[in-house]
């Protein structure tokens, strides 16, 4: 019977199976960062356990690293968390891209950059955006700290086989429409919990035509639809992205690997537990106006009315969200004033994202009411951007150009949106207080965020001119 890529990878990784139990699944790559790992390493120490396969681990620090003045971390507790990761990696022999290492960056950006992320792998990390790596045709999912400890000790996890879902995106993307808009439109249409209990495969011609960077943006936000993992079957785009990267084999061995990767793709006629479809006709540049990623609309729309929702619980949630955001129902989205812009995060801080944003702002100036920062996803992205002169475009426009990290996506470091202020953000979550207590987040694509920085309010990138996206 024809199989999906999800079933193929799952079946290949079963170490042990027994009726009435979850499967014992082997983990090929364990990514580690400073926030969700200290308690796990401490657990190993308390029980006198070691890391079973340090060679299958890779650690970096990203969540609370400063994006400027790195030599002096003022926050004592953050400093301790960072030094704890250093000590743990040293003690247990885990490879680490330290804060001053040229490979440092957001863990979900550097995995693919280094070629650690590969098709067919099972990949975990104590971070829900681990789903990003699914773009390569891997089963990649976020885990809690107890599971981090379990993987460190045993290189396995007990996992119930999830259901499979196909999300098919048909048609061709319109002018000015980005990968971010596809995933925001999917979440708005089907809901924040549509993926609970499923691994999602994204299919359809619109997905096939996306670059690897764009595919990562889509898979990254699978968790915002409730799916622990989202993936895309590998193809030539996948293979060419990986060719020549540090952790993939070279020469003939690469061709052998590439052939194996391509054979993982979902077979014609394979069945999913569920399939949903969305047409690109329904997708325009998207922005969120509420307090979860499903509360978004096409930029030409108005904020929905409470009476548009049938269920009382949804009406209450809508009222609460608008009260928090300080926005009125029925208001045109383009009328929302913006005072902060954040271009960064594991969703949209790759080189292509920065190039797109730079194209929008080139020769223009950031609006006087706006504070705008660019936080490259990794030191590699930062260096490449600087070689291309992109940093200068941002700096001339009035953006700040920072060091790599998670930064204002979750505001664990000093990069915080002040209370009550609206931020156009290329990140992935618009929960209450996500970017700082009282902050009001509007999720959108890099081009849209860049345009908002120039105009001081949300704008439709299609009317703004110059988009090479």
């Amino acid at each position: 019977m024809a199989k999906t890529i999800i079933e193929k990878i799952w079946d290949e990784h079963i170490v042990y199976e027994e009726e009435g139990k979850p499967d014992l699944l082997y983990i090929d790559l364990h990514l580690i960062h400073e926030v969700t790992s200290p308690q796990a390493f401490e657990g190993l120490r308390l029980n006198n356990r070691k890391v079973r396969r340090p060679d299958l681990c890779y650690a970096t620090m990203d969540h609370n690293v400063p994006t400027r003045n790195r030599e002096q971390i003022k926050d004592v507790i953050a400093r301790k968390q960072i030094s704890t990761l250093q000590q743990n990696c040293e003690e247990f022999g885990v490879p680490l891209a330290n804060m001053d290492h040229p490979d440092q960056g957001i863990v979900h950006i550097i995995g693919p950059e280094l070629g650690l992320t590969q098709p067919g792998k099972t990949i975990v990390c104590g971070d829900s955006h681990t789903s990003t790596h699914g773009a390569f045709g891997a089963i990649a999912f976020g885990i809690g700290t107890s599971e981090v400890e379990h993987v460190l000790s045993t290189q396995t996890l007990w996992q119930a086989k999830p259901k499979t879902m196909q999300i098919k995106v048909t048609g061709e993307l319109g002018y000015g429409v980005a990968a971010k808009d596809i995933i925001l439109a999917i979440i708005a249409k089907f809901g924040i919990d549509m993926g609970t209990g499923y691994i999602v495969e994204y299919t359809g011609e619109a997905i096939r035509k996306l670059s690897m960077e764009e595919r990562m943006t889509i898979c990254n936000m699978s968790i915002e639809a409730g799916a622990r993992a989202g993936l895309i079957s590998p193809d030539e785009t996948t293979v060419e992205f990986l060719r020549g990267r540090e952790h993939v084999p070279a020469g003939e061995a690469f061709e052998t690997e590439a052939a194996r990767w391509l054979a993982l793709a979902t077979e014609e006629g394979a069945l999913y537990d569920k399939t949903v479809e969305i047409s690109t006709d329904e997708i325009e540049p998207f922005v969120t106006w509420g307090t979860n990623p499903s509360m978004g609309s096409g930029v030409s729309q108005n904020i929905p009315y409470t009476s548009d929702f049938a269920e009382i619980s949804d009406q209450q949630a809508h009222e609460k969200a608008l009260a928090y955001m300080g926005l009125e129902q029925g208001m045109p989205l383009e009328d929302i004033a913006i005072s902060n812009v954040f271009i960064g995060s594991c969703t949209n801080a790759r080189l292509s994202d920065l190039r797109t944003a730079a194209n929008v702002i080139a020769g223009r100036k950031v609006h006087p009411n706006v504070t705008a920062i660019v936080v490259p996803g990794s030191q590699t992205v930062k260096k490449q951007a600087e070689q291309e002169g992109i940093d200068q475009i941002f700096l001339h426009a009035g953006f700040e150009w920072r060091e790599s990290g998670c930064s204002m996506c979750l505001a664990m470091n000093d990069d915080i949106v002040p209370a009550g202020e609206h931020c156009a953000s290329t990140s992935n979550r618009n929960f209450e207080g996500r970017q700082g207590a009282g902050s009001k987040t509007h999720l959108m694509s890099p081009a849209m965020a860049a345009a908002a920085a120039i105009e001081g309010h949300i704008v439709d990138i299609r009317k703004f001119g110059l988009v090479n996206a």
Partner: protein
Amino acid sequence: MEPINEINSVITPLNQKNVDTDQIISKEFLKRIERTGFGKYLFYHWRFDANDQPIKDFVLNDERYKESTILVAHDNFGCGSSREHAPWSILDYGFRVVIAPSFADIFYNNCMKNGILPIKLSVSEVEALLSKEVYNVAVNLEVQTVTGEDGVVYSFDIDPYQKKMLLNGWDEISLTFQYEDKIKAYEDKRIAN
């Protein structure tokens, strides 16, 4: 972890959908390197205003629920981040059971690893519970029931493997070590291929 079976308590009704882990435990409290001591930060920005004063109409500040060990919420509880600090803060605050129509996957798993029982009831059953002002229930994991003080009995499903882990409070890593030969055999087979 602490075994769990019978829990009797007044329920704390948190009538909200999509309660995300950023609300359960805000990021400024994630920098600690211990597993304990997170209870005082649970729902911090819903419990306290900008001057750290209690917000009166938030349910956790209601004296009637001070001793409660059972939290009831609406759909998709625990969505968002994988931070296990969320269940740590719930447990440290004093809750042992969370009842909702649905949970986010990672949060649900994280509860299981910490001796917190997440119970899924139907939307109408949860809405019935949320409509009560002060209501005591008896949870029994062994027989998989929630019994209200008025005698109404709600049954719930739970995976038998996870039920056993919770009832016994077993350390999963110790159990997995019993399969070490299987893990080794798998690794050898992969190297051979």
